[in-house]
């Protein structure tokens, strides 16, 4: 049994996946919501297990590690998935009630890919996990298969995704060719020698990761996919696969490479710059709340790349912290959009008009999420931005910090436009916005996360620093 210890979460999730699948086969009738509850509570149970687990040594000959970093992000994936599934239970459309098993099997399969990815220390494991994570996402993006836009978005996502996967696989083949081993430790050691092919391979592989985290110039799929997908899924899509992409990035490019990590500073800094610029500037003219959040999410990725550009243990730790803050802030914002869309039938920003006078608590929650995304003190996002800037300043990247800080002002402009709709403009219609209990609970969880991390970020920061330290 001890041999299976490091795989506890993956095995548990696999069992849950099979259970959900079988339940889907056995279920009859049009309302199959109990399956959704099974999946949601199962993920919650796995989260509880993950919180109790201790880091373990490498397994499968070092191909699979359950170290602090893996565990840190696995807890994050499970938290995000729990919130996302919880918010999705009460989706009003009949298609979701009828096809609940399908939806949840796909989400759980993708989650399994993320969990394995977080632990992968081998190129093959990494790539397989990467695909396991990605392919269900393409299907889920087109889940509303009767709607043209959903199919279009799904296809676009799939095409861009498979091309970047192909380029990544191509790059990884060069890496294998240069190193002669699929072990990431061996790859890191090989950097000491002068291998142009290895550098080329790593550069090509970067494309895959950048696509997954939606950095410029691989971000085009984001707004369309987000706009067309079911919102609770999009909320989850906007955070969990991003986190997975970053972890894989750290595993391949930073772990064990020591001083060689610094070679990626110019590229990461340049990517951070263009990603922040694109996301923030493109968000300004948006009229649809989900598209706005899509572009703001791209900008957020840019800020995380600032932390990557620091190429240091503290930079990595601060990206991890940023991801935690981002999970709560971004999912929360999407879920409030979902709540309004169910009530008003509109995902436009104008649906927010007068929300503060209709549902003051919902408006307050949205304000907190926006302030967190904008990086305002006393909510989580402030510390996140501050810490990545800090890490970059430690490495002397003052110009990047200044640029990032100035662009937060641009970001605040479009966040404040939403705040203005909610707080300053009068409502179009009276009455509270109806809110299903599960959706309300998931919004509440996000709000709690944002506020608690804002008031007392220390434990999470310390944990992030602790798990990032062994990488360098």
């Amino acid at each position: 049994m001890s041999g299976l210890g490091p795989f506890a979460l993956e095995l548990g999730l696999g069992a849950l996946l099979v259970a959900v699948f079988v339940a889907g086969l056995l279920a009859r009738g049009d309302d199959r919501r109990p399956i959704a509850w099974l999946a949601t509570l199962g993920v919650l149970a796995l989260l509880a297990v993950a919180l109790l687990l201790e880091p373990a040594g490498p397994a499968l000959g070092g191909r699979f590690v359950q170290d602090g970093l893996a565990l840190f992000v696995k807890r994050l994936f499970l938290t995000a998935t729990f919130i996302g599934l919880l918010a999705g239970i009460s989706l009003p459309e009949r298609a979701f009630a009828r096809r609940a098993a399908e939806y949840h099997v796909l989400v759980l399969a993708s989650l399994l890919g993320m969990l394995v990815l977080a632990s992968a220390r081998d190129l093959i494991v990494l790539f397989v996990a990467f695909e396991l994570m990605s392919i269900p996402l393409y299907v889920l993006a087109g889940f509303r298969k009767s709607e043209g836009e959903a199919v279009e978005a799904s296809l676009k996502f799939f095409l861009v995704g498979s091309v970047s996967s192909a380029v990544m696989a191509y790059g990884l083949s060069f890496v294998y060719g240069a190193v002669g081993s699929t072990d990431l430790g061996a790859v890191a050691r090989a950097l000491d020698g002068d291998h142009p092919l290895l550098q080329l391979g790593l550069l090509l592989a970067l494309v895959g990761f950048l696509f997954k985290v939606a950095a410029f110039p691989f971000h085009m799929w984001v707004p369309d996919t987000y706009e067309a997908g079911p919102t609770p899924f999009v909320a989850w899509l906007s955070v969990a696969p991003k986190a997975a992409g970053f972890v894989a990035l750290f595993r391949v490019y930073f772990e064990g490479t020591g001083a060689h990590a610094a070679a990626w500073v110019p590229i990461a800094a340049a990517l951070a710059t263009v990603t922040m610029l694109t996301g923030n500037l493109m968000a300004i003219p948006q009229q649809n709340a989900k598209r706005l959040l899509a572009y703001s999410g791209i900008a957020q990725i840019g800020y995380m790349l600032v932390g990557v550009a620091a190429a240091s243990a503290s930079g990595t730790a601060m990206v991890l912290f940023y991801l935690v803050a981002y999970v709560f802030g971004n999912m929360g914002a999407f879920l409030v959009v979902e709540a309004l869309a169910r009530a008003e039938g509109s995902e436009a920003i104008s649906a927010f008009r007068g929300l503060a006078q209709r549902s003051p608590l919902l408006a307050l929650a949205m304000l907190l999420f926006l302030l967190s995304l904008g990086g305002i003190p006393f909510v989580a996002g402030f510390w996140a931005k501050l810490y990545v800037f800090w890490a970059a300043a430690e490495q002397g990247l003052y110009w990047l910090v200044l640029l990032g800080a100035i662009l937060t002002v641009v970001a605040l402009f479009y966040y404040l436009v939403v705040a203005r709709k909610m707080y300053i403009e009068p409502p179009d219609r009276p009455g509270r916005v109806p809110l299903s209990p599960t959706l309300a609970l998931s919004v509440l969880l996000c709000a709690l996360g944002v506020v608690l991390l804002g008031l007392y970020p220390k434990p999470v920061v310390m944990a992030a620093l602790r798990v990032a330290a062994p990488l360098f």
Partner: protein
Amino acid sequence: MIPFPVLSIITWAPFVGAVLIMFTARHRPLAVRLIALVTTTISTVLSVFIYVVYDREAAGFQFYERVPLVPPLGISYEVAVDGMSLLMVLLTSVIIFAGVFASWTVATRSQEFYALLLALVTGVYGVFVSLDVFVFFLFYELAVLPMYLLIGIWGSSGEVRPRGVFAWAFRQTGVGTKEYAAMKLTLYLLFGSAFILVGMFALYVNAGAASFSFLDLEATTFDPTVQFWVFLAFYVGFGILAGIWPLHTWSPDGHASAPTAVSMLHAGVLMKLGAYGVVRLGMGLLPEGATDLAWLVGSIACVNVVYGALSAMGQTDLKYVIAYSSVSHMGLVMLGAATLTEAGLNGAVFQMFAHGVMTGLFFALVGLVYEKAHSREIFRMGGFGRVMPGIATAFTVASLSSLGLPATSGFVAELLTFMGAWRSAHPWWLWPAVAGTFLTAVYVLRVAKQIFWGPPSPHFHHLEDARGPEWVALVLLTAVIVVFGVAPGLAIGPVDTATVPLLARIIRP
């Protein structure tokens, strides 16, 4: 020395008030006002108390408190006041105390209004008492953000409709509306804080990344290049808040659109917070940077003085006149600081106080006039002195202080600044400064004559003088102007204990 954390009580009392108002006083407007009044009274009484018991012989930072917040990063909640911040704390107390009375009649969503106002005040107090640069920055942000909602919800839009070639563009962006002003103000100030943040990090990293404490950073001597760039960053960052030309344009829009108490607090205290940041962090931590860039600070300040005064002359909206006069007077503050002389720096700090009280009074009066006449157009009004003699008198006192009449606090401040300018390395600064005072006389007297002393306007009937709580604000602020004008030593004494050591560090090579 004092057995209780007096500075923390001053700082956090309004915040406690804000929380109480949010949670207990729903739909009870009187309770809202009483909570606001009680908490600000606590802060005000204690500010006067520390002003009196501050030991001028010992000088330096007193009433020290320290609680480590994030020990590994060297962040702690560290507060203390010296002579300079002491005066600023007193100013904040005077203005907010008067502000609570001046906004007694806010009717719509008054619960949220007072809660935000009090949260803002905590931010302002916090900036003035913080010794930890990081906590200073947190309070600074707290002081900036509530402003967006305060102006956006309770502000007023101007009556002047855009004309001319760019009218179409102005209408599209909503120039002159409160929403536009709120957004502009918030974005400008956050743009400034981006520079402050970078400067702060640069200092922290260059000092060895161990502590954010002002006292530790002060003991570090930074490399001249670092000093130059960080001073520039602080100057731009805090300077935006202090309204330096050409980054001042948020201020007239913001102050004109803001509700009365917010204009009072913003023009009276928050702009000072910018100047205070330049003096405390810029000049205090970066003596060489300050010396190298004094020419820039002073020259731009001269532009401010003259440009602000000329702009004020061209306005027809009463609130814009006062708002531009703030830009002009903040130029005098920055000019005094840039002289790097004892007289000039004392003048700058005293001017912050004098102008704060004066402009607070101005905005309170403009608010009252607007509330009664529902107009801000100067040329529609006239002869109000007959029907509102109290308001007219207070306005005249503020005007005279504004143009620097002896026996008002404005006179002392301007005289000291002029003396400093004359003795500084750039004596020519004196001329724009004096010209600014002259222009001030032109525009404030013109406004006072038109509105209060001219022939009665046919547009208005049944106007009243100030009532009940409003008198408190007027009498208090007028009295402070006169008392500190007659006995400037009350303020110069403690301020001098802070400016002399500051200058000693700068002048020593």
